[in-house]
């Protein structure tokens, strides 16, 4: 490999642009003649829209139009869709209520748009919005998932009686009942997985530009998957036909899932641009982000685990109520089902598992995938369960885990997933060593003698990444395939462009994907560039989420490279008058093995394009495409251990140490991987200690700004000790598993387990604020 190939901690190519302020985000794009949109949003969690009077607003300076939900209906713009069909236990399809991009009749959460003002400037649009009179008739609202399913609760959608979207299950109930009936011990646990607001650094934004002469739309948008956006906008929303819609996602400042979905604002911007005949720009502010970016998590669960007399797990039973918010967001239905219940086996040999999931509407912001998506909820439940069980069974929590680890692969769980490879003992051993687990008892005793409460908590997570084998997800209800495409263009002078359908919004693709090319060809990464985020440039792709980019997108690049190399070798062999089978690629040269004959890549490329002397019958050019569909998920796994000290007088938790031992398969760029782990851990710790999107009983958001919603800051976090153990993923040629979500999946249970150990009390929910911890200690 070259010095910039796989395994090298190359510094990020994209950083020069970002650090010098040259990143180009949607809001940085200025189009000639652009107008500005400002949405009028419901202040009520649930209300009928009785009338919208824009007479005064239309007279105000700079106002071009005030558009309402009724006009969307009149123009036959489609309602938002949910792209994954879930079937209830009783065989009935999920019950989805209509979600129009602006509400013509009923608003169901605070922040839902009812109208939009288009004006010459943003400020004029805001001024005019204040003059639009919306007449609401308030309705009773419900925000809490348990309250929403009670009889007599306010009803959100006529399609979903009792506010229930689906009542789904997975696993073998009879086998689980049998397991429990022969159990020596049963451990039970009630848990809440707190609702989170994603808060990407860059708020969402969109610019729509309609060209009347060409009847063509261009949409610049903050998207993790511009091709999916184009597909959905054209196929379902009726805003523009696919070949007349170009979607560009330029630099995007973080997504964490929240920028997967196609939101009302993008639809309205496109539609409005055609209506007013000029470009329309909308840039959300932080308040709009809190109110309208899809939230994450929000589960309430009851779980029971059965053990035999040797503390081997016999079975697991889980019942979860998932709060979906007021509407079904694009992938919401898949999150608490196929991304959650399928991971409930964790790292353990559990012979029987049965999970029930009830999806519920409430008058809150819609909930969808957020970094980890379902897998953090599964991991948190299971890892708190293991810790609780260890305490109840009076055995060491690490030992209980080890006793129940899956040790031989492939392993078919009772909940669909088939783990392909792993070494769970290796990760926990590495983590225990890194934190000096053996020395903890002495440290705890010493802390106690100084009047301090010390605790240690373990969390062993597994996740299903590399999303996803299309046929498998199709059979489970997915409306799309989840393959990835890549195109490699070797230019006539030998520089290389890699077009990928994934999208980088913090994942460092511009560096790591180049390293794959550098590894194979031995060229410097400066000779390679990555093209992504534009539906006119990249033919198709499914975007970036679910830690899929390297495992699926990276493999597509490898597949395309194999084709490029095969053709290039033919050209080289022809030029060198050698056999194609004798050509090897080294340091950017095509060599005849065992001789000193060689030809450099640029000469091969040039030959391909001049076509003066190609093998008979060969097409000119050196450009190849591959579509890669994985055969299985990948299974990153690891062990996190956290040591904390709790101040009994204030309930404040401080970190003593936090160690991570992850198995991501092969690492393309260890520095980048470490960065991803740090970010994920920060989010996992944020969920455990700080973050909580709260609504009051009337559905009014309590945490719609950073004054109330606690984002983790550097001084809230410990200095992480990150390490790796490696089993290669057998499912793809790179041996990679993905690393983007691990930290957010595994960290929260480790933190809570450490705190409950410190305070000697398991009655603690996330976020473990000082107030809650103090109450847990003092009652």
């Amino acid at each position: 490999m070259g010095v910039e190939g796989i395994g090298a901690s190359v510094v990020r190519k994209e950083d020069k642009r970002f650090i010098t302020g040259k990143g180009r985000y949607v809001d940085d794009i200025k189009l000639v003649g652009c107008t500005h949109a400002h949405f009028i949003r419901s202040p009520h969690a649930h209300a009928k829209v009785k009338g919208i009077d824009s007479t005064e607003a239309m007279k105000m300076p700079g106002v071009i139009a005030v558009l309402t939900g009724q006009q969307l209906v009149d123009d036959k713009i489609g309602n938002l869709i949910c792209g994954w069909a879930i079937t209830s236990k009783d065989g009935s399809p999920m019950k989805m209520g209509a979600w129009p991009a602006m509400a013509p009749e009923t608003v169901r959460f605070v922040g839902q748009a009812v109208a939009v003002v288009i004006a010459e400037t943003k400020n004029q649009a805001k001024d005019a919005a204040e003059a639009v009179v919306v007449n609401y008739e308030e309705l009773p609202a419900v925000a809490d998932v348990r309250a929403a399913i009670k009889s007599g609760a306010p009803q959100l959608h006529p399609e979903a009686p009792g506010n229930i979207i689906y009542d789904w299950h997975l696993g073998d109930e009879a086998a689980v009942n049998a397991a429990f009936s022969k159990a020596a011990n049963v451990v039970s646990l009630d848990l809440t997985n707190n609702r989170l607001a994603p808060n990407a650094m860059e708020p969402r934004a969109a610019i729509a530009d309609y060209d009347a002469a060409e009847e063509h739309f261009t949409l610049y948008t903050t998207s993790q998957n511009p091709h999916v956006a184009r597909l959905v906008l054209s196929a379902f929303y009726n805003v523009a036909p696919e070949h007349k819609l170009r979607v560009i996602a330029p630099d995007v400042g973080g997504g964490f899932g929240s920028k997967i979905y196609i939101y009302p604002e993008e639809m309205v911007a496109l539609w409005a641009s055609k209506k007013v005949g000029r470009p329309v720009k909308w840039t959300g502010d932080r308040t709009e982000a809190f109110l309208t970016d899809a939230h994450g998590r929000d589960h309430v669960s009851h779980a029971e685990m059965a053990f035999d007399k040797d503390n081997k797990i016999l079975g697991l039973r889980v019942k979860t109520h998932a709060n979906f918010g007021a509407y079904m967001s694009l992938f919401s239905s898949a999150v608490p089902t196929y991304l959650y219940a399928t991971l409930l086996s964790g790292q353990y040999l559990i012979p029987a598992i049965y999970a029930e999931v009830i999806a519920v509407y409430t008058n809150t912001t819609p909930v969808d995938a957020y970094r980890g998506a379902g897998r953090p909820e599964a991991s948190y439940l299971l890892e708190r369960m293991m810790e609780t069980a260890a305490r109840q069974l009076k055995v060491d929590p690490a030992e209980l885990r080890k006793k129940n680890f899956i040790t031989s692969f492939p392993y078919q769980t009772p909940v669909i997933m088939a783990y392909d490879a792993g070494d769970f003992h290796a990760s926990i051993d590495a983590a225990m060593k890194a934190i000096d687990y053996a020395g903890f008892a002495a440290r705890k005793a010493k802390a106690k003698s100084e009047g301090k409460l010390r605790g240690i908590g373990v969390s062993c997570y597994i996740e299903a990444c590399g999303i996803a084998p299309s046929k498998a997800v199709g059979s489970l209800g997915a409306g799309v395939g989840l393959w990835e495409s890549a195109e490699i263009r070797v230019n006539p002078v030998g520089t290389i462009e890699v077009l990928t359908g994934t999208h980088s919004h913090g994942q460092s693709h511009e560096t790591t994907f180049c390293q794959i090319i550098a590894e194979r060809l031995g060229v410097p990464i400066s000779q390679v560039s990555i093209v992504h985020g534009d539906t006119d440039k990249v033919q198709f792709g499914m975007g970036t989420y679910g830690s899929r980019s390297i495992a699926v997108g990276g493999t597509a690049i490898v597949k395309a490279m194999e084709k490029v190399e095969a053709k290039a070798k033919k050209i080289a062999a022809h030029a060198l008058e050698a056999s194609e089978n004798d050509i090897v690629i080294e340091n950017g040269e095509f060599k005849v093995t065992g001789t000193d004959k060689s030809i450099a890549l640029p000469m091969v490329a040039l030959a391909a394009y001049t076509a003066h002397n190609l093998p008979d019958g060969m097409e000119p050019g050196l450009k190849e495409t591959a579509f890669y569909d994985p055969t299985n998920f990948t299974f990153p796994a690891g062990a996190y251990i956290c040591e904390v000290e709790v101040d009994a007088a204030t309930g404040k938790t401080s970190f003593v140490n936090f160690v991570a031992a992850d198995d991501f398969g092969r690492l393309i760029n260890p520095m980048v991987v470490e960065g991803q782990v740090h970010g994920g851990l920060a989010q996992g710790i944020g969920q455990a200690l700080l973050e909580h999107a709260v609504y009051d009983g009337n559905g009014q958001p309590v945490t719609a700004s950073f004054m109330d919603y606690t984002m983790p800051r550097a001084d809230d976090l410990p200095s992480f000790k990150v390490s790796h153990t490696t089993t290669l993923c057998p499912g793809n040629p790179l041996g990679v598993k993905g690393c983007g979500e691990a930290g957010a999946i595994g960290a929260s249970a480790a933190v809570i387990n450490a705190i409950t150990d410190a305070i000697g009390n398991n009655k603690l929910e996330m976020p473990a604020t000082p107030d809650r911890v103090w109450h847990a200690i003092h009652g």
Partner: protein
Amino acid sequence: MYETTYHRPSSIDEAAALFSKGKEAKYLAGGHTLIPVMKQRLASPSDVIDLGKIKELIGVEPSGDGIVVKAATTHYDVATSDTVKKALPALAYLASLIGDPAVRHRGTIGGSLANNDPAADYPAAVLATGATVKTNKRTIAADEFFKGLFSTALEDGEIITAVSFPVQAKAGYAKFPHPASRFALTGVFVAKTPSGDVRVAATGASQNGVMRIPAIEAALKANWSAGALDGVSISADGLLSDIHGSADYRANLIKVMAQRAVTAAG
């Protein structure tokens, strides 16, 4: 933000004259409270009169029995002033805990006191030390200045020019930051005068803003030690309660922070 007219006077008198001419004028100091409120369209002053560049409003000076901090002095300048660190180190420490570096380099003591946020730090120091607030019209004793949430004894157009802090025999501040905003979830300032009088003020805790805590004052007057507060119980009545701190938790924090402030004071 709505449209407004910005003025930059160079003297206190000029500022006051501009204020009386404006239809709905507002003074601006560090802008770390006023500007966010304007951006959210919750305030729409016709005129914004910047006090931050008026030389006679900036700086810290020793005075006979204490120090004078002029109104437009930034939190950073108070936190790093040798004069403050020598005469009233607890005040420098308090200023060093306000917000983050950007806030400390812009925000001012005058702006903080005029705003009287119930979770702001300075009010605790002003009330506990029995400081005097000087304005362009009069002097106001600390006990008379704070009038509940976001309200003070200041009249319309009145400018805080300085705060005069009397020297203390002992003084200490302990703050438990609000997890999200980093204002005080509860902050307690304890002070003992050279004559042995004790004043204790808590911020962040009460529904009525900064307040003195007589039970703690009495206990510390009898015995200036953290242990002296072990038996004191603080009522949760009238205390704030929200997702970050219930009233009983804040009552506990008043006591714990008072103990830590005493320990810090030595």
